[in-house]
């Protein structure tokens, strides 16, 4: 019961801050803009695709439909979303330290564990809402604007997914994306418990992600052995749900590594938070 009330408090605080809406506002503007641009600039691509595959397949609807648009936008934004997610996760502890509000909050007869869990839960709920909003906006608006139909995926050739199949695969894609973003939030929380300003955790989170992204994508032998163990190697694993057959084994291996990283970062963050002297 107390956890519920604490989480309710944290959500209230999160959604009373302007910074929590930056990402949402940004996508509210930019996604329709991209969808508009997508409609304007794909007529010649559509013609080329239809010419190339019409002799082999019958494509229902336009090949550059809402599904393909949503896939295209997801491909484009998965590197940018972490920054927007970290704005909230990075502030969740550090912001209170900087404002001095922890002095009041932490003196109540509540355990540090309850405070930590409620703040983490609220951050994860925000992350989920963010991913869902992004999904609804890209897929929902994409389908309204460009209509449905079969989805074309370019992976080892051309793969055509039926409309209903594509929709269910998007659900999995958003599910895996949420896990990746939950890890970003966990890293932001990890930095947030260590410092007393909200900027540091955002920069720290992005620095960690950029560093590991570089290591996991550089085609150098020295890094190749460690790449399977880096969480950033699996950051684009959501794309695999559109393959045929879906490589469930790889997907769940990646899922496992991402999940264990979430546990690691949150575990260390709690250990630091539970022992930390609140002096500010």
């Amino acid at each position, binding site marked *: 019961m107390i956890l519920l009330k604490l989480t309710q408090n944290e959500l209230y605080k999160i959604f009373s801050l302007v910074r929590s809406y930056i990402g949402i506002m940004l996508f509210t503007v930019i996604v329709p803009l991209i969808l508009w641009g997508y409609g304007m600039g794909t007529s010649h691509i559509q013609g080329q695709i239809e010419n190339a595959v019409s002799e082999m397949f019958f494509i229902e609807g336009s090949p550059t439909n809402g599904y393909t648009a949503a896939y295209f936008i997801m491909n484009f934004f998965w590197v940018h979303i972490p920054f927007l997610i970290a704005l909230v996760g990075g502030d969740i502890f550090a912001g209170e330290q900087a404002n001095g509000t922890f002095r*009041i909050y932490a*003196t109540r*007869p509540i355990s540090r564990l309850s405070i930590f869990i409620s703040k983490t839960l609220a951050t994860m709920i925000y992350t989920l809402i963010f991913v869902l909003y992004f999904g609804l906006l890209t897929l929902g608006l994409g389908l309204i604007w460009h209509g449905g139909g079969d989805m074309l995926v370019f992976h080892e050739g051309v793969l055509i997914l039926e409309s209903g199949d594509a929709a269910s695969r998007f659900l999995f894609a958003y599910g895996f994306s949420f896990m990746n973003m939950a890890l970003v939030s966990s890293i932001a929380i990890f930095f947030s418990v260590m410092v007393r300003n909200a900027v540091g955790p955002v920069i720290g989170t992005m620095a960690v992600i950029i560093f590991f992204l570089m290591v996991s994508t550089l085609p150098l032998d020295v890094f190749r052995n460690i790449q399977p163990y880096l969480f950033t190697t699996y950051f684009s694993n959501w794309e695999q749900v559109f393959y045929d057959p879906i490589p469930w084994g790889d997907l769940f291996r990646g899922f496992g590594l991402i999940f264990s990283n979430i546990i690691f970062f949150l575990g260390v963050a709690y250990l630091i938070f539970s022992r930390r*002297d609140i002096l500010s």
Partner: protein
Amino acid sequence: MIDTPEKDPLVENIPPLQSMPMALECYGLSKRFKTIQALDDVSLQVPTGSIFGFLGPNGAGKSTLIRIVAGLIRADAGNFNILGRSSYSGHKVRQEMSTLVDRADFYKNLSASQNMKILGRLTGHDQDDHINELLQLLGLYERRKDKVKTFSQGMKQRLGLAQALLPNPRLLVLDEPTTGLDPQGMHEIRDFILKIAREQQVTIFLSSHLLHEVELICSDIALIFNGKLAAQGSLSTIFQKMENVTVELEVEHSELAIKFLAGIDLVSDIKVLANAISIEIIYSNIPELIHRMSTHNINIFSISQRNRLEHYFLSLMEQK
């Protein structure tokens, strides 16, 4: 007769309660920050129902002790009880205690009511009626819908007191509650503290380095220097034990009075002030002095002890 003209009459309503159970008991509390020993084996007892002044110069260890009791920092050694609950029971020890540590800070983008709601939810005291009642008590009801960022520091301190009263605490711990306030703000906070103690039956543990402030409102005190407890007890007992006190006399014929005072062995350090005569005298000799002056037809309009606590504080510091 010895008068204390600046003392608030409300203080008189709070009896010394040394025989009652303790609201706060600390045993051997120690805390070290790198090279600084902030607290060194401090033990103290705060009687239930008292307004307890915790005194010491800046950096003496007052805030460190309060932060340990409030659960903000961990002690290296020692333990404490709050209203019979041991610190070994974890966060539950603070079940009946509320704190205002240092300056009151709030969620600035939220209103006074919204802040109170958030903090009330933590202990299940978020009913609108209760919140409004407290805002009324602290004189903030009219501004309850305004964002806290529009509040003055004095208003924030009052809101700090209001939030501290949300869980209906039996022990209220206040760390330098008048810091950063102008004289009017300090006066308001002092009045509120007395009002709370009287009307809500709350034990108040108040840290301050303002001796005058403590002397005005506290019934009991403890003094701390360099992390070590130097003294503790009820103010009246401490003052009774003080041998030399500084007394100011307002008399009808000051020249005659000065001549008389210079000729007797009861007093020393006679100073002529603008409207009074200042003397140093052994506390127990004051009745004898009054008697002798009246038998010599020297009419006394008033006799008052000034800065008794300061006198005591400085003498203790010299000993240390």
